């Protein structure tokens, strides 16, 4: 495995550092896993575009030394659809948060999947709106205290990976920041799938979420994600745990491929 410093030189936009992330934020683990996956796939950064919305998670695109479109809250997948559809040769990666992806951006999310536009979406699910100080999000677990559910959240949360699967994504996986190697491998596999790739990462937000929910030190947080998840194959035995692993990996005609064949068919 390459040294972190070596990877940083190659892949990070160093003049944008330090990051805005709080210490202990899981988003850094996701950035690291993404870079390692790109490195091991030997992808050309100059042919990649990182698109993101608004939120802490959506800041990751800024730190990779490639073209990057930091857009409006919730709409990253729609912008990314435009990038990919206009130039299918580009490898497009979207960084998004749970609020960005399935709150304000939920409609773009399911329709991007339905179209099977060949982009790779990495959603950092930290159970809350971190950037705005810890409000409830569509994925906040029931009972959690957030700044807008002061007596505990009671709404039914989305299972985001399941939503992606149901909408028809070509690749879906869920891991946590306590499983960095498996995450990296999933990113590698997902990026290799030509269709819509969706990777959900359960990730700690110590500043805005976990403090209010009484998990205060990094080891405890790390362990929480280990203890509350279960490999997907054994999920039925442990219905109270969150299934992790690869949910979908299928071949499916991708949007830009279909558009190209339509153009070949109709253009004289």
């Amino acid at each position, binding site marked *: 495995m390459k040294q972190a410093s070596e990877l940083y030189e190659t892949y990070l936009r160093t003049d944008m550092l330090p990051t805005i992330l709080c210490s202990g934020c899981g988003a850094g683990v996701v950035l690291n896993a993404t870079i390692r996956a790109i490195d091991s796939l030997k992808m050309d950064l100059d042919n990649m575009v990182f698109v993101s919305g608004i939120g802490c998670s959506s800041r990751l695109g800024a730190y990779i030394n490639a*073209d990057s479109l930091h857009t409006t809250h919730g709409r990253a997948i729609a912008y990314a659809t*435009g990038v990919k559809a206009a130039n299918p040769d580009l490898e497009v990666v979207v960084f998004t948060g749970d609020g960005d992806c399935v709150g304000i951006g939920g409609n773009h999310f399911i*329709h991007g999947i339905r179209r099977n536009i060949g982009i790779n979406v990495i959603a950092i699910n930290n159970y809350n709106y971190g950037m705005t100080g810890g409000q409830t999000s569509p994925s906040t677990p029931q009972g959690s205290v957030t700044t807008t559910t002061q007596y505990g959240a009671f709404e039914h949360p989305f299972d985001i990976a399941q939503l992606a699967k149901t909408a028809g994504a070509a690749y879906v996986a869920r891991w946590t920041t306590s499983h960095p190697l498996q995450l990296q491998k999933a990113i590698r596999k997902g990026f290799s799938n030509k269709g819509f790739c969706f990777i959900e990462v359960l990730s700690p937000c110590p500043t805005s979420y976990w403090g209010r929910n009484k998990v205060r030190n990094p080891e405890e947080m790390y362990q929480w994600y280990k203890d509350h998840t279960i490999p997907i194959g054994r999920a039925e035995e442990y219905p109270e745990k969150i299934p992790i692993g690869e949910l979908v990996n299928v071949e499916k005609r991708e949007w830009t491929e279909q558009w190209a064949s*339509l153009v070949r068919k109709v253009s004289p």
Partner: protein
Amino acid sequence: MNAREAIGDTVQFVQGDKACVYGALLAGCRFFAGYPITPATEIAEEMSRLLPLIGGTSIQMEDEIGSISAVVGAAWTGAKAMTATSGPGFSLMQETIGYAVMTETPCVIVDVQRGGPSTGQPTRASQGDVMQARYGSHGDYELIVLSPSSVQEAMELTIRAFNLSETYRVPAILLTEESIGHMREKITIPDTVPLQSRPATEDEAAPHVPPFSPFGRGKKAFVTGLTHQDNGHPSTDDHEVHDRLVRRLCAKVCENMDDIFQADTVRMDDADTVIVSYGISARPGRAASEMAAQAGRKVGAITLKTLWPFNYAYFAELAQRVDHIVVVEMNCGMLYHSIREAAAGNANVTLVSTLGGKVADPTAILEVIR
């Protein structure tokens, strides 16, 4: 097949919506994203027919926010890109129009106006989005808004919208109305049109416009709607950075007024009264001017093709020359207020306002002149 071949005959009898599509394709538009809405739907339909023939891309998005977002994404690959909508969709697009302003993304938005507020009158013309086109997104900014008064002009001004948008790296809005959008008129399609592309180097760029680095060329562009420095890096707490950025974004539009502003004039030489209008309202405006001339009156007519940026100097000078400015609009008075402000009491400014899809009657205009 090239765009000109795909468009077909030189002389055609078509709707304004279709003429917009022709103009866009001639101007080099190769990406369209849209969502159906009366009275702009024909634009999306025609784009979906023609773009694949010439190797372009057309996509129906899940809503208008998605449409304008996809357009901005496509524009960053270097493509000339457009969307088209009407009032309700134009409202949804406003946040991203501001994003396009802040990120200096060339793109064209066609708004075929219908009666509002809300769902209003889907099949009736209006000029009710004039202020929204200028001020619809949050923050201080300037952009370019053009208004055609015929089907031929719908094509020509769409071409111009693309060229101005490219030159100044600013969203350009073609603000038309249901009447022009759905009206059929004879148009003549040119074989070639003047083409502008976004500046690739400082030398090519107009004053205050930075060069554009499209994605995929190793330029490692960082594009953000956050307040940023010249290199694109966010800098959100320094008032000087924000001040400089916003003033430059406004200046690149307003200080190039001579290039951007266009108006057609008739009978202006010795006019003491002038009828100012735009879009479909310009037609009764010009008719009233002609009727007044026949009655021996000195009534000129100005048809604005550029609504925004607003040319204060032009109207200040006009108010020195004439006694009376009559503004004809299909709204409760929108451009009227800016014209009155520019006239600064040097001429009387009167509004002839119609609503509900009714185009002003030339005799009603003559009545206020009398």
